[in-house]
């Protein structure tokens, strides 16, 4: 494989198909056609985005609310840079605190006084909140997958099992996270009573709620994938007299991996969406809580700050989806050409 082909494959693999024409253009491969492709695939989205921002800034100022006019793109951008600045300021403060403590500690020890470690207790910055949200969603997602994939496989393998759990799936699938959360919170505070907890209760409540809402797409897709394994592959297993376990691990699961990953991708999307609602109510220190706090503030910056959060949530959701697409490509064989 040539270098160019390798780079193109890498981009396609990473879900960056848009950049492929640039590689071809750079390699001098039919420049005219590449330029047309680039103009189309970048020009049109750019024009559309520009139109969106234009209409937004034109309309925003004329919409008055109880806390001032709706902020335009410029105000939102300003607020975003404020949040970034705040983050650095906060980090600087933490560092200063650390330095102060170090000198104090030396002084104390020199004088022979007992020294007690003190932790800096500043408020979490916007980036800390993003990290918390990501941790929570991944915890919930992993928990959901650990339940959904095995149960889905059993559903696909055994019709009896499927008939047994199908009503539960049908009934629990459409339940909103807002209904699960109170139950989960009460259960968590009842069952998770450790004097030195490894995780915050709010973290666990949010993660479990995410799991409860996001396990369905994986479960249903896994069951479908397992139930629709090609007859030919099963005939191979029969002719070789593979044991039940080896048929499942060597034939059934590999063959349904593409659909399992489709399910996982949908699940992560649902999980991220549900997380914000869960964090808002559970007061888990993530993006959801940030939105809620800003809403409670009701300052003139509130709307702009929430819009920053909305943009962040959307962008992270997009990145998570891309990530799952790449994973899906790693684990999917080329069905069409076999």
């Amino acid at each position, binding site marked *: 494989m040539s270098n160019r082909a390798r780079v193109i494959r890498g981009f396609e693999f990473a879900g960056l198909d848009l950049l492929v024409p640039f590689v071809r253009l750079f390699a001098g491969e039919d420049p005219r056609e590449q330029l047309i492709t680039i103009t189309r695939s970048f020009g049109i989205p750019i024009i559309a985005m520009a139109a969106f921002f234009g209409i937004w800034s034109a309309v925003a100022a004329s919409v008055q609310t109880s806390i001032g006019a709706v902020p335009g793109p410029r105000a939102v951008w300003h607020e975003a840079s404020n949040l970034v600045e705040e983050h650095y300021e906060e980090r600087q403060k933490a560092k200063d605190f650390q330095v102060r403590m170090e000198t104090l500690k030396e002084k104390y020890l020199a004088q022979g006084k007992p020294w007690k470690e003190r932790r800096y207790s500043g408020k979490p910055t916007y980036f800390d909140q993003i990290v918390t949200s990501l941790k929570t969603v991944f915890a919930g997602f992993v928990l959901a997958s650990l339940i959904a994939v095995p149960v889905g496989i059993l559903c696909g393998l055994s019709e009896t099992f499927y008939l047994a759990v199908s009503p539960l799936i049908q009934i629990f699938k459409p339940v909103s996270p807002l209904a699960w959360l109170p139950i989960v919170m009460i259960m968590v505070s009842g069952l998770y009573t450790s004097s030195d907890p490894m995780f915050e209760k709010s973290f666990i409540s949010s993660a479990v709620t995410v799991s409860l809402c996001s396990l369905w797409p994986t479960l249903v897709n896994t069951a479908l994938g397992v139930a629709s394994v090609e007859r030919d592959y099963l*005939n191979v297993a*029969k*002719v070789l007299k593979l044991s039940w376990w080896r048929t499942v691990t060597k034939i059934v699961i590999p063959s349904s991996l593409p659909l399992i990953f489709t399910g996982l991708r949908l699940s992560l999307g649902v999980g991220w969406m549900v997380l914000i609602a869960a964090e808002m109510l559970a007061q888990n220190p993530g993006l959801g809580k940030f939105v809620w706090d800003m809403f409670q503030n009701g300052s003139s910056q509130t709307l702009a700050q929430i819009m920053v959060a909305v943009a962040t949530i959307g962008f992270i959701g997009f990145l998570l989806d891309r990530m799952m697409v790449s994973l899906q490509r790693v684990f999917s064989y*080329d069905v069409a050409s076999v």
Partner: protein
Amino acid sequence: MTLPVSDPSATSSRPCPPDSFFELSAVSKSYGAVESRTDVLCGVNLGISEGEFVAIVGFSGSGKSTLISLMGGLIEPDAGSISLRGAPIQGPGPDRGVVFQNYSLLPWLSVEGNVALAVDEVFSDWTAAQRREHVLRYVELVNLGEALAKFPSELSGGMRQRVSVARALATDPAILLLDEPLSALDALTRATLQDEIERIWEEDRKTVVLITNDVDEAILLADRIVPLRPGPRATLGPSFPVRLSRPRNRTALNHDPEFKSLRNMVTQYLIEAAATQASESYSQPVSLPDVEPMDLSAPRLSIVR
């Protein structure tokens, strides 16, 4: 989905012990519910000696696939019995290697992986090194040494079928069942693979049943040709032994008078069988439903009461 189950009820009593290596006696198979039953195969008898290469030739839709599935044990006969070395077969098993028409390679495994899956299962008591050597030997046998790490999607149809042959042979089956292995390939690849199959067969003289719709292919490869009279109620016709010396050369064969007459006989037999079948199936009168065209201009009855 159903996982391999061996059903002991398949063992039906037989009047006398079979004397052939692989034997089908009075095998019948029907599909469908009682009221819409299709008898695909009816009273099929066939005896195959060890090391024999038998070709079963028939038109498409004549029940060839059903026949090979029965031999492979993938489906159970309704009546009659199939036995290998005198013992009735019970479900599918690696003693009967099947090469499927559509290759049936596992797309997520490489060439080596596909063959290794079979070898690891059948020779599970060997060491890993022994098994790998065995895999390599059979991949080499079908001339795919270069493509060991390739995936099925990267291979041509002919190469895929070779992998499938290697996988079936690697389990060292007592009998090799080839279900129209070459019918999905283009004429040139087909010819190459026919030569390949002959070469491989010459090497270890396995018992082979080849199902095909190509009379030339059957003559080129087989010791004996058995035509399948087309279904429904398909059954096997008389055997046509092929006495041409081996190795057979396809170009020389085209001018061989014995080849020509054999081809004419088999083709003639099949065409006549099909004609008889067709006249039989048309002989039954079909009653058409008594319907009148609807008058759209007439006022229609309202459903609302």
